């Protein structure tokens, strides 16, 4: 039977709200607002009692896989454990119930967190300053690319309208470049999955504004030629952009600033443990080297000699605002608490454990699945289901079968340059026992592909719904409930 929608359990006359009676003199609304501005019928919303509501939404929650209910090795997404203390702290009234336009003197704690996060993230990435305004990774990318464009324009170099991205990059890279008004040029990867330096050299010229790189890249490999790449791009007058999606591999080990990057974004919801919320809110701070600081979004939090924090709006070269207020502050609070609870040693241990976990899994799985790139990986790795595909079982089928074992599947069919790709990122917060359990499931599935492929092809077997018809959804979109 179909699970009911909230609208389908609605009953006229039920209510879940409790509001105070009007204690100011009663006035007819039509005397305050002209009747032609008023709606004639009530908005189409459900009517339920509180218990209906609770059972409905708690029931929905139980249909989700989540980090708190099971292993979530979704490559490139860093689904690490989200410490509970950070949730409690962000909910304190002194953070959650503070209005963004209160007088500076009344929000010193909030501004202090923003300022100190700026400083700590700058240290972690090797940048000069960091803006916490962008609301997500892709938003940080957009802000960073706008900064690059504004920088070139400030030097009269209006011709620099091209951004180079590797063919293994996240889709957001070319999309953000396009929204920021750039043309996108793609460079090929070499046999090691890294940027092909010769092909990079061939596209560098006076029109290049910059190169966007994820390092380690989306195959989980460190760009071995990073120093040479940075030199080449800089010699051509371009800037280097660091997509921080994979920063969980390098905390305290290597800094984008030292690798030669000029602009960095981080995903606080990945490396810095803030929960993903089912797709958001995240936070995508953008950091820059010294000569780019004037271009950061307004406002910037500053501190005067007396230790008083204030908002600096007087920034004539700034790209302007990319979001209202100061970013996803509530998310920043959690990431701040995370960094404070780990310190420098703790952060380094995060990356060490994340990289060890990934290498351990890769080592165990390569006997059963094709491994396109043999060298040690960083915090994640890509295997291919091409052996299994030859038997008629695709990576999608393997992914669905993993659900029957209580695991979220890895990222699949990405990066695009590996056929039947499965991108696995265990993170540091999983135990050896959990990794072994997942490996065992993958081994069993590999055996099933040989012996009883139907079991894999028809998976999942125990989920709330079986495989869904995505073609039907896209051909005749039904995007809301109708009576």
């Amino acid at each position: 039977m179909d699970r009911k929608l909230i609208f389908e359990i609605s009953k006229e006359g039920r209510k879940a709200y409790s509001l105070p009676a009007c204690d100011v003199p009663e006035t007819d609304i039509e005397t305050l607002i002209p009747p032609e501005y008023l709606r004639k019928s009530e908005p189409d919303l459900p009517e339920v009692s509180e218990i209906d509501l609770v059972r409905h939404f708690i029931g929905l929650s139980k249909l989700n896989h989540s980090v708190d209910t099971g292993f979530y090795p979704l490559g490139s997404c860093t689904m690490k454990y989200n410490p509970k203390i950070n949730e409690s702290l962000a909910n304190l009234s002194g953070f959650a119930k503070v209005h963004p336009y209160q007088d500076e003197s009344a929000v010193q704690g909030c501004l202090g967190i923003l300022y100190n996060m700026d400083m700590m993230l700058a240290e972690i990435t090797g940048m000069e300053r960091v803006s916490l305004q962008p609301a997500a990774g892709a938003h940080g990318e957009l802000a960073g690319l706008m900064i690059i464009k504004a920088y070139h324009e400030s030097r009269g170099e209006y011709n620099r309208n091209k951004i180079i991205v590797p063919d293994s990059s996240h889709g957001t890279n070319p999309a953000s470049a396009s929204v920021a008004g750039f043309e996108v040029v793609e460079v090929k990867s070499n046999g090691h999955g890294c940027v092909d330096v010769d092909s990079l050299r061939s596209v560098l010229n006076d029109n290049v504004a910059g190169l966007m790189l994820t390092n380690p890249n989306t195959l989980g490999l460190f760009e071995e030629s990073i120093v040479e790449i940075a030199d080449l791009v800089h010699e051509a007058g371009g800037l280097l952009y660091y997509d921080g999606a994979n920063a969980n591999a390098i905390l305290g080990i290597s800094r984008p600033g030292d690798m030669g990057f000029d602009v960095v974004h981080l995903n606080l919801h990945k490396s810095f443990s803030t929960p993903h919320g089912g797709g958001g809110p995240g936070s995508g701070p953008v950091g820059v080297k010294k000569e780019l600081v004037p271009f950061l979004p307004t406002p910037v939090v500053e501190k005067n000699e007396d230790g008083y924090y204030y908002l600096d709006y007087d920034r004539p070269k700034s790209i302007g605002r990319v979001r209202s207020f100061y970013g996803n502050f509530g998310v920043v609070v959690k990431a701040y608490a995370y960094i404070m609870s780990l310190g420098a040693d703790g952060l380094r241990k995060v990356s060490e454990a994340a990289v060890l976990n990934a290498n351990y899994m890769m080592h165990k799985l390569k006997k059963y699945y094709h491994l396109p790139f043999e060298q040690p990986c960083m915090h994640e790795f890509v295997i291919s289901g091409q052996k299994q595909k030859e038997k008629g079982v695709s990576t999608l089928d393997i992914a669905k079968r993993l659900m029957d074992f209580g695991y979220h599947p890895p990222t699949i069919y990405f990066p695009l340059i590996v056929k039947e790709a499965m991108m696995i990122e265990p993170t540091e917060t999983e135990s050896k026992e959990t990794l072994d359990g997942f490996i065992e499931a993958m081994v069993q599935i590999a055996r099933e592909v040989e012996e009883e492929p139907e079991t894999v092809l028809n998976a999942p077997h125990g989920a709330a719904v079986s495989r869904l018809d995505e073609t039907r959804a896209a051909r005749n979109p039904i995007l809301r409930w109708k009576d």
Partner: protein
Amino acid sequence: MNIIEGLKYSKDHEWVRAEGNKAYIGITNYAQLELGDIVYIELPSPGDKFEAGDVLGVVESVKTAADVYSPVSGTVVEVNEELAESPEKVNEVPYESWFVILEMDDPSELENLMDEEEYGRYCIEEGK
């Protein structure tokens, strides 16, 4: 490989059926197989002008999207409205599912396209 005789083919896997100065344009069987279940087609409007190689429309499947390029230059005289309602027709009968009819500027451009034999060889190369 399902290729029809008498049509002209582009490297981007469009087919052209010429009737006088009119060119019927669609995508090939090879293209629809590569795309999978087609869910939506974005078409131009009558009167739009295209140079050979311009993006004429977009075909979307669930997991991918591809631009459709105009194999010849000309002006759109008619678009196949039926495809907006039933994009699956392109999967079912690709060579009957024309996207647009162009009034060609220069029918000699057809000579730049492949015939069925050349296209067949081209597809085998592409598939490798």
